């Protein structure tokens, strides 16, 4: 399995299904909420369900973009560099990206730990924040690992 190469990797792995599921669930819930509001049958807590769905969709989306090397970058200068130098620059960029996500993962884990006993939850449906914080922390950690993995290979643009 080659997780870093978009050509070789299956496009419909678990991340795809998690992200697509979150996205479609949000779409359905919000559409039902709008229709419900206009016909007099409000969907209670629709916003909170959508908020939970978007966490899964957003985290999976960030990982999909990272694994497929789809992050927006300016390549005007690097495209004109000699190949070996280009490789070093991409490797440095990937290390920086890995460190950035590692910092976010560490910070998120810290916050999750701090708030663990405060039982954060949404107001209407009481959806707990703990699993959401765990998902966000995990996503940042996985993105960090993906960038470090790329830095070790340094074959693709970050």
């Amino acid at each position, binding site marked *: 399995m080659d997780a870093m190469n978009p050509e070789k990797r299956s*496009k*419909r792995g678990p*991340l*795809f299904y998690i*992200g*697509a599921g979150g*996205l*479609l669930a*949000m*779409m*359905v*819930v*919000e*559409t039902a909420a*709008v229709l419900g509001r*206009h016909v007099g049958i409000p969907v209670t807590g629709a916003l909170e369900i*959508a*908020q939970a769905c*978007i*966490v899964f*969709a*957003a*985290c*999976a*989306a*960030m*990982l*999909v*973009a*990272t694994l*497929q090397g*789809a*992050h*927006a*970058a*300016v390549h*005007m*200068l*690097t495209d004109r560099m000699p190949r070996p130098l280009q490789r070093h*620059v991409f490797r*440095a*960029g990937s290390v*920086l*990206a890995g*460190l*950035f996500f590692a*910092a*976010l993962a*560490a*910070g*998120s884990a*810290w*916050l999750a730990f701090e708030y663990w006993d405060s039982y954060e939850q949404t107001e209407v449906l009481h959806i707990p924040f703990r699993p*959401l*914080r765990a998902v*966000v922390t995990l*996503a*940042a950690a996985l993105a960090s690992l993906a960038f470090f993995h790329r830095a070790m290979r340094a074959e693709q*643009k*970050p």
Partner: protein
Amino acid sequence: MSGLLGVLALLALLALGVPIGIAMGAVGLVGLTILIGPEAALVKGSVVFFESVTRFELGVLPLFLLMAHFCFAAGASRDFFSAAAGLVGHRRGGLALATIAGCAGFGAVSGSSLATAATMGEIGLPEMRRRGYSTAFASGAVAAGGTLGSLTPPSGALIVFGIIAEQSIGKLFTAAIIPVVTQTLLYMATIVILCRIRPSIAPPSPRIPWAERGKAVLRVLDLAALVAVVLAGIALGWFTPTEAASIGATLSLVLCAIRKRLTWQSFCEALGRTLRTSGMLYVVIIGALIFASFMSFTGLAEQIAALVHRLDSGPTATIIVIALLLLLLGSVLDGLALMLLTAPILLPITTALGISPIWFGIFFVRTMEIGFVHPPVGINLYVMHSIAPDIPIGRVFKGVLPFLAADFLHLAMLIAVPAMALALPAWLA
């Protein structure tokens, strides 16, 4: 001083090809570490991260992208072009006019300049070349028309601006309507004038029977209705932008099924593309928000605002200077990087001068659009060159020049008459 160093560090990282979101986030985190300490910086960055991925309003981005991909799967791009070509294609320059109209129509469902230029280029450019249009004129028309995708609501650029600037996305969409219409009309006027001056650049095509024209127009009625429902819903307050995006995505999925274009393959492809683009945008937004926090701690924007105040140059002169700065930076940075780098610095300055943030958002995206077609970056021009590699890039540049003149005229109109952007939101409020 730290703010200026931060901006320079960011520019250096961007030049070295570091992804935009990561460059902004890393500079922001390091800057915050220096200013407020590592512990507070880590907490600040993580709070921004968590709040961004749990933010309901940000759901508008992936859902509008999903709507765009379902519309694309439903054949929206070709249908918009065919309808416009059926109506005006037989006139001199008619296919170029159809391309501009197609760009405006497809821009409304794609929300992206690049996607509009690439898609309409694939459809319009070969057709114009087949009918003997000048390659410079044809490629210039598509490249310029593609920029309409950035401003035509629901626009991705306006959504990102709304999030960064904490402004109502609904108001931004409504404010964009008149500028988009006037920009489209100016491009069309440019085509008509060019065809009057040099008729050989765009020969007339054979007239299509009325029955076929009618069919072509009927084919886009459902797509036009979808866009109308989404925009009217937001403008008239039937639903929030996020709800509008959900309705738009659901209706476009239904529309795709009714048109018998919905297969498991196209469904998964639309979802996969949406996830990839939204993931990229999420990282960019998170990075930009961390960078904006750092900027607010440096006080750079306030210092520049104080300098502007001391110069006592007035809002119009300041806006002209900002426009020149954005055009200059836009010639070396891509649109998204330009917006995320400068909006947190420029917005407090313009707000201090009493300029409406909604107007500034429209002005910003409009200026950013010009960067898509002016050298040396002019990404839409390179898109045209990649679609038709036999057209030298110099000819594409030459072809876009008259449209660039129309762009500058339009920008001047927007500065001189702010009501172009502000009248509709005020009227609908």
